[in-house]
């Protein structure tokens, strides 16, 4: 069923694509001289038909693009295949009798600007297609003796018929600038050898194909074993962090909301208060509290509960338990906050009916409360799970990924894949490996959540209220 839908969708897009290519050429062949010129001079189809403002805007874009490509763009494009050939070096200056530093190519900037030029070209190309469509449309309207839209009409449409274009313009520009370009840049970096020994501007880096992926998946034993161990730990962590917090949080909420318990608001506030303290503060405090010579160990020793300090964060296994437990402290208030409202929505008669059937509280929780909650909060759970896979704060601020281990490459026992990624870029400057890891995390996370998102009821019933 799903597969069929998917292949149908692809077919739909393919025919759409074919049709638009066909109409593009048809427009040219059937076009009069004005339309034909507008296939070469952007905006001509509008200028010649008295849509001056729109037409000159298009023309301006074309002129700007050509000038830019001549000045810089083509150079950056031509450098993309090699990412630079001239290393920065010293050149003997005969006249002054000294070595001068010659400015070499900077692979990183070449790659970044190369990507930007390609994206710019894509945008200009889309605008070009749009203006040919306008030219064809204008010609058709003249042949049918209809009026051509004036600039004023176009503006009015932007606030009504084409309102989506207006309000999505800035969000999309910002997203392209601060998310898409950087992302493409980083993805491409995974196919280069940009590491400590290939640092621009002193050195160049270049394309190495899928070498980094090969290394991670077996060719480099240390890298691949580190990756595997961290992957397993990341998944274990995400499962514990998500579901323990969820179930324990619901239980706490149930206890607080229980009939006959007074001061509900007081209890809730006591827990929720911890959300308000910025996480970096509470987590760093925790890490100081749980330090080998930290307050908790001192207290326990003073009360003679233990003789020697407990290595909360310095023993590989205990550290893992500690971060999960502390994360429960961090996470339960959120669950309480979100679920207590929903809990009250569960129809009371469900519980009463089950009581008549002789169900105890535990059975009620398993068969009534949990299924209801799961049904309502699936999207929340998915975001939590994804958030925990990428949970930088808790690990980085609490344990810093430690304790360090010689069996792992630049990582500690509690490091998640994300914190490893951070260490690889910040401490080790191994951008190539970091980007490779980033892509792998992304593939895991996105396939998982896209599938669940599209199956969850929230997306399915989008138009339910219309």
């Amino acid at each position: 069923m799903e597969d069929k839908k998917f292949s149908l969708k692809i077919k739909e897009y393919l025919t759409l694509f074919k049709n638009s290519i066909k109409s593009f050429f048809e427009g040219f062949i059937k076009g009069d001289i004005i339309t034909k010129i507008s296939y070469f001079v952007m905006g001509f189809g509008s200028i010649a038909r008295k849509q001056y403002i729109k037409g000159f805007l298009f023309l301006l874009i074309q002129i700007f693009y050509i000038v830019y490509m001549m000045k810089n763009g083509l150079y950056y494009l031509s450098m993309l295949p090699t990412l630079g050939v001239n290393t920065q070096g010293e050149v003997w200056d005969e006249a002054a009798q000294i070595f001068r530093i010659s400015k070499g190519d900077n692979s990183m900037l070449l790659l970044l600007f190369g990507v930007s030029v390609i994206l710019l070209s894509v945008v200009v190309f889309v605008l070009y297609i749009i203006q040919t469509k306008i030219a064809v449309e204008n010609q058709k309207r003249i042949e049918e003796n209809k009026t051509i839209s004036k600039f004023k009409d176009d503006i009015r449409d932007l606030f009504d018929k084409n309102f989506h274009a207006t309000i999505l313009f800035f969000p999309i520009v910002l997203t392209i600038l601060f998310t898409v370009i950087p992302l493409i840049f980083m993805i491409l970096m995974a196919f280069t050898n940009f590491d400590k020994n290939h640092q621009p501007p002193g050195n160049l880096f270049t394309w190495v194909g899928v070498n980094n992926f090969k290394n991670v998946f077996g060719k480099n034993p240390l890298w691949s074993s580190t990756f595997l161990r961290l992957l397993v730990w990341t998944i274990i962590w995400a499962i514990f962090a998500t579901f323990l917090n969820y179930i324990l949080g619901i239980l706490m909420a149930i206890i607080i909301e229980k009939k006959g318990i007074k001061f509900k608001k007081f209890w809730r506030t006591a827990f929720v208060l911890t959300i308000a303290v910025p996480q970096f503060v509470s987590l760093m405090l925790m890490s100081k509290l749980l330090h080998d010579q930290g307050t908790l160990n001192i207290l326990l020793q003073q009360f003679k509960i233990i003789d020697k300090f407990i290595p909360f964060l310095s023993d590989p296994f205990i550290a893992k338990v500690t971060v999960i437990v502390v994360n429960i402290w961090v996470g339960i208030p959120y669950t309480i906050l979100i679920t207590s409202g929903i809990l009250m929505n569960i129809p009371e008669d469900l519980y009463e009916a089950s009581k008549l059937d002789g169900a105890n509280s535990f059975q009620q929780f398993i068969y009534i409360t949990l299924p209801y909650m799961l049904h309502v909060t699936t999207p929340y759970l998915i975001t939590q799970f994804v958030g925990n896979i990428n949970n930088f704060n808790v690990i980085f601020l609490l344990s810093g990924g430690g304790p360090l281990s010689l069996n792992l490459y630049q990582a500690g026992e509690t490091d998640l894949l994300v914190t490893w990624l951070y260490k690889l870029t910040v401490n080790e400057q191994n951008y190539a490996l970091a980007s490779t890891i980033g892509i792998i995390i992304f593939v895991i996370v996105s396939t998982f959540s896209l599938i669940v998102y599209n199956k969850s009821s929230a997306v399915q019933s989008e138009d339910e209220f219309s």
Partner: protein
Amino acid sequence: MKKSTILNAITYLFLSITSFIWVLPIVWLIMQSLRGEPGAFTSYVIPKIWTFDNYIKLFTETKLFNFPRWFLNTLFVAVFTCIISTIIVLLTSYAFSRLRFKMRKPLMNVILVLGMFPGFMSMVAIYHILKAFGLTQSLISLILVYSGGAAMGYYIAKGFFDTIPRSIDEAAIIDGATKNQVFWKITLPMSKPIIVYTILTSFIAPWVDFIFVSVIMKDNYQNYTVALGLYQMITRENITAYFTQFCAGAVVIAIPITILFIIMQKYYVTGVTAGGAKG
């Protein structure tokens, strides 16, 4: 009757103990911020000398750690981030929820997928893009970074907009309203919870973010935000001398956030469950 009294007593005991555990670190933080004795740690919990010196020093001794300036920096960044991201989030989610256009579904999926990349993976590239614009280490660059990704958080507000009956829009359009007018005069006035939620979350983000600001600001101490600034106080070299001041600083920024959070509590729940609460 008697059985339920015992049960309630156990529940109260349990709640008291757990809430004590939850509140303890906060109480400890406040006590440390009022501690008069120097040093990072003491071998006892309750301070022997109580003082406000740590707070006074925080705002007066600005040579090494310029806390007042960091505080104003953060406030400045937070206000502008909040304005820009709120506008972006509301516009994007309204478009995806209410307007029907050809690229809607693909765009929604693309933006959703983009949001799943580990955020700071792109920081290196963003750093150089900002450099190309001559903006690195400035507060404006921080604002851009915090609000640049705002569109990716569209789905919570979209979930909320989806619950507003569309028949209201349609009635207005029949009466001759443009979609622009529908947005400003009908949808927005009905969306107070999600607007408050969006404003508050985007306002709080700069106060608690630590990673992005550390990548962008590097060594420009003057433009640090409170989070990064406070972190400097408890590095290995400084922790002995500045730990109590760190606690004081933490309390100072926790107070406004706590107040905001208590205001936002009920909206927060509406926000988070809006996308999913209609099973």
